[in-house]
């Protein structure tokens, strides 16, 4: 022990101090922090640098699960703006006072598509096609907590195939996870968001939006944000003349844009 202690402890202490230089970055003036649903990742990485230039501020994008973000915002998470995958979370947080009601804005209406893995047989065009015995596994997002999963379940029920398809279903944690099941060929078909469907591994056809409740996606400024006007400017930028074409390109359409 005595032999060990001498070189080890000072080395560890030195390493700790040296690493301080990395962690010290937390002391910089904080950028605009945006909590955004995971499906916005591609669109926002394209869009945020343009806002940074236009507004002269830095933007930190944090992508994750809408449910996790909601829990964190209730507990005082240091975000300025919240883009939820499902407006019900925004409604709840506005009611609880964590988000500013007057900043609440619809930024997209989600659409779902029927996807078939290119490598695994015939391309499906209708939900009834899922009954084909050649389709062994079908991926949807978990309907218990993922909005796109709930829409998928509603569409399958309305088409009268829910009971028959149920035994083939595999649940993804969120819509990107569901897409991964398709991309890796772990399933033959699935129902995913239009916004993530443009990948080389799958074919897809739109699902009639009248088969499910509208997937309204809303954003709002966080009450404890020190710069609410900057947060609101970001929301307006997303829905403005520079933001909308990018949002549309990634499949985030407002009613009227389809």
């Amino acid at each position, binding site marked *: *022990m005595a032999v*060990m202690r001498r070189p*080890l402890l000072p080395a*560890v202490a030195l*390493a*700790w101090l040296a*690493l*301080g*230089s*990395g*962690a010290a*970055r*937390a002391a910089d003036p*904080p950028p605009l*922090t945006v909590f955004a649903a*995971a499906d916005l*990742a*591609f669109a926002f*990485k394209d869009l945020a640098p343009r806002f940074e230039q236009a507004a002269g501020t830095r933007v*930190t*994008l*944090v*992508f*994750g699960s809408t449910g*996790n973000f909601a*829990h*964190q915002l*209730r*507990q*005082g*998470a*240091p975000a300025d703006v919240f883009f939820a995958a499902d407006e019900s979370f925004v409604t709840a947080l506005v009611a609880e006072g964590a988000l500013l009601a007057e900043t609440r804005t619809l930024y997209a209406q989600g659409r779902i598509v029927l996807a078939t893995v290119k490598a695994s047989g015939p391309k499906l065009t209708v939900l009834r096609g899922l009954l084909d015995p050649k389709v062994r596994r079908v991926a949807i997002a978990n309907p218990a907590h993922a909005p796109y999963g709930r829409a998928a379940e509603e569409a399958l029920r309305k088409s009268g195939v829910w009971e028959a398809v149920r035994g083939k279903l595999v649940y993804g944690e969120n819509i*990107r996870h569901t897409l991964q099941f398709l991309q890796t060929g772990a399933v033959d078909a699935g129902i995913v968001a239009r916004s993530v469907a443009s990948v080389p591994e799958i074919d897809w056809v739109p699902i009639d939006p009248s088969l499910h409740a509208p997937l309204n996606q809303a954003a709002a400024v966080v009450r404890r944000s020190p710069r609410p006007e900057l947060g609101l400017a970001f929301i307006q930028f997303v829905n403005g003349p520079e933001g909308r074409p990018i949002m549309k390109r990634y499949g985030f359409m407002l009613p009227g844009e389809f």
Partner: protein
Amino acid sequence: MDLFPVWLSLRVALTATALTLLIGIPLALLLARRRFPGRNVLEAAVVLPLVLPPTVLGYYLLLVIGSRGPVGRALATIGVELAFTWGAAVLAACVGSIALLIKSAQAGFESVDHQLEQAARTLGRSEWSVFWSVTLPLAWRSVLAGAVLAFCRALGEFGITLMVAGNIPGRTQTLPLAIYDRVQAAQMDEANALALIAVAVVVVLLFGLSRLARLRF
């Protein structure tokens, strides 16, 4: 490539391991040496973090240290905000890893011959002195092995950290969170590079320690 997550994670894991040793060794000693009411409850509580899913643990922890939680409010009165800082990541790493240290150290302390400690006491040594001159020198391999496991677990901690520290790039995005983020964004090159760094750190650590201390893992 931004290496901030690497430095942050190393700092978090080192700090967490130091705290874990500070809190874990007395607890391990207590569990190994004393019979007291509630001992079984304490023993169960120690391993609980290994049983619960990390995100669930993080959910509860955030309820406690968040701005509306009891600890969060108490800290706020003295001007400290723990949730969503790198300190929260340290707490997450401690909670996730302390059981590994305690169980390993406890086994080490239990295997120390009581008669040797008794002999030291009859020679007039204080309990403090007995611990440093007899118990720890005989059990240090188990303590170190536990500390290494705890460090590795702290370095890889994901679920609790995601909930209590957030995944904020440049502030609380640790190495595992950064790797996950890159995978989600389909930036596999960066994800692979970061994963390689994580593996390299642990391999170097284990190799170095086993050379230094002739440990077997």
